[in-house]
């Protein structure tokens, strides 16, 4: 096959849908008003935000008041966790989370532990990266102030039993937050069905712009806002609203969720073609994450005896964009904590490859990768001291 440009890293970010760009544009140059201003230009911006908020609320099955717009998923996570922790300071000093959260959750919890005297329980996971709801229940103490467990894991795609955990949180009257950033376009976001009190979203994961996110906050759940200033977002998050971004987020979410079943069907077919192709053509390779309860677009693997960055460079040379959980591809030089949490030995975790598909990917894209990848692995294995020892 001739060289192609193939993007298979949709978990990292997605291209903005042209319809989203079109919806956003007027808010840069024509309808640029500050939504807090009294005059017409300001009120136009206010109306756009209100409509966006109502659209998001409808999708999440909540009221518009319960939607807070933020600058990104990480901010939503910080708002949720710090907000709850500081509101309940003194009374609640314990947080329950998992060992496989995104750093926006885990590093926030770590800072609260180290500098603010909270205790945090990091729940273990099984080999499929699933949290056991009974472990959540066992970890609850009278000091527990928050439970935070992600909806779908960004590295291996596993979907967590959120509704079951929500049931337990409710029975104990503990606020329950879920980082739904990877779930955004693909899974059901009905907060009643999920039984969550807080939920984080990020637009750039579902064909929306970077720089805007959402925190759903159930009515009656109080938090102490970390970002103070003006009275924006009902005094929960100060800062002049990113009107274009907010309009973009709502438009993107409507598009993604509106065609969810159809999109997922297509993605699952491509994903499974990819998984079957890789597992059958490259020996000593394993699928990571749950075989069934996984995101429709996520295909993640460990490939023995080779290192992840080497794989990515080889793929990049052939026009393919992908990612890895190896130490060398992380800024911290540590291998993925998610892979380690599922019991994978470090040397195998370094050989991880994550391929996450999107709407623009085709069967030809998948077949191209299947054509290219075995050669890359073979070349790296031929240089590897681990391979010749094993074979």
């Amino acid at each position, binding site marked *: 096959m001739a060289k192609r440009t193939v993007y298979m890293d949709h978990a990292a970010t997605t291209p903005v849908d042209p319809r989203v760009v079109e919806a956003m544009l007027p808010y840069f140059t024509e309808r640029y008003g500050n939504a807090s201003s009294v005059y017409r230009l300001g009120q136009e911006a206010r109306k756009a935000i209100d409509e966006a908020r109502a659209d998001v609320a409808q999708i999440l099955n909540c009221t518009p008041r319960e939607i807070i717009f933020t600058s990104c998923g990480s901010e939503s996570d910080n708002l949720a966790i710090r907000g709850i922790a500081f509101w309940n300071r003194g009374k609640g000093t314990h947080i329950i989370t998992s060992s496989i959260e995104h750093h926006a959750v885990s590093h926030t919890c770590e800072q609260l532990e180290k500098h603010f005297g909270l205790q945090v329980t990091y729940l273990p996971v099984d080999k499929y990266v699933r949290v056991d709801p009974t472990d959540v229940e066992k970890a609850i103490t009278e000091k527990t102030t928050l439970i935070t467990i992600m909806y779908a894991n960004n590295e291996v795609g596993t979907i967590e039993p959120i509704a079951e955990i929500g049931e337990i949180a409710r029975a104990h009257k503990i606020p329950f937050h879920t980082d739904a950033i990877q779930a955004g376009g693909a899974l059901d976001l009905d907060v009643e069905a999920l039984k969550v009190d807080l939920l984080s979203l990020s637009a750039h994961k579902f064909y929306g712009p970077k720089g805007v996110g959402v925190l759903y906050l159930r009515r009656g759940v109080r938090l102490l806002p970390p970002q103070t200033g003006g009275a924006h977002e009902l005094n929960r998050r100060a800062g002049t609203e990113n009107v274009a971004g907010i309009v973009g987020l709502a438009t993107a979410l409507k598009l993604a969720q509106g065609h969810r079943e159809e999109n997922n069907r297509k993605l699952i077919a491509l994903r499974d073609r990819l998984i079957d192709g890789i597992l059958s053509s490259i020996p000593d390779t394993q699928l990571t994450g749950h075989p069934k309860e996984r995101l429709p677009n996520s295909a993640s693997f460990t490939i023995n005896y080779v290192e992840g960055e080497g794989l990515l460079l080889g793929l990049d040379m052939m026009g393919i964009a992908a990612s890895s959980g*190896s130490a*060398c591809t992380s800024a911290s030089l540590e291998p993925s904590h998610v892979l380690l949490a599922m019991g994978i030995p470090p040397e195998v975790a370094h050989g991880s490859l994550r391929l996450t598909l999107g709407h623009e990917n085709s069967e030809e894209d998948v077949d191209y990768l299947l054509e290219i990848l075995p050669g890359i692995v073979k070349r790296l294995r031929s240089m590897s001291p681990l391979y010749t020892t094993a074979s």
Partner: protein
Amino acid sequence: MYSEKVMDHFMSPRNVGVIEDPDGVGKEGNPICGDLMEIFIKVKDDRIKDIKFRTFGCGAAIATSSMATEMVKGKTIEEAMEITNKAVAEALDGLPPIKMHCSNLAADAIHAAIEDYLEKKKVKQPA
């Protein structure tokens, strides 16, 4: 992220392989950390007659192994012992700061192979 020279050595590494009956072997790194290098040398008349490497590691690890072996091939033992990680990185037109530790591994593995050769030589020679 990487220079053209690094990418060249990554895509077309020099001196990959093993030597069946090596005069010295050096191993550095640890697969648990994500980097493992093996260097094999053949010595004749106090010069590195042949050198081969195997590496489990990132682009920088493979490129520095390749460049380091190219730099010492044909040199005397003394000259080869003097190779530094800085020299290897410079020969590759530089490495991102976060990747400099890979060049350490390459230089250290070569030193280890030479030390192994010298140890073996001592054992062979009568006291």
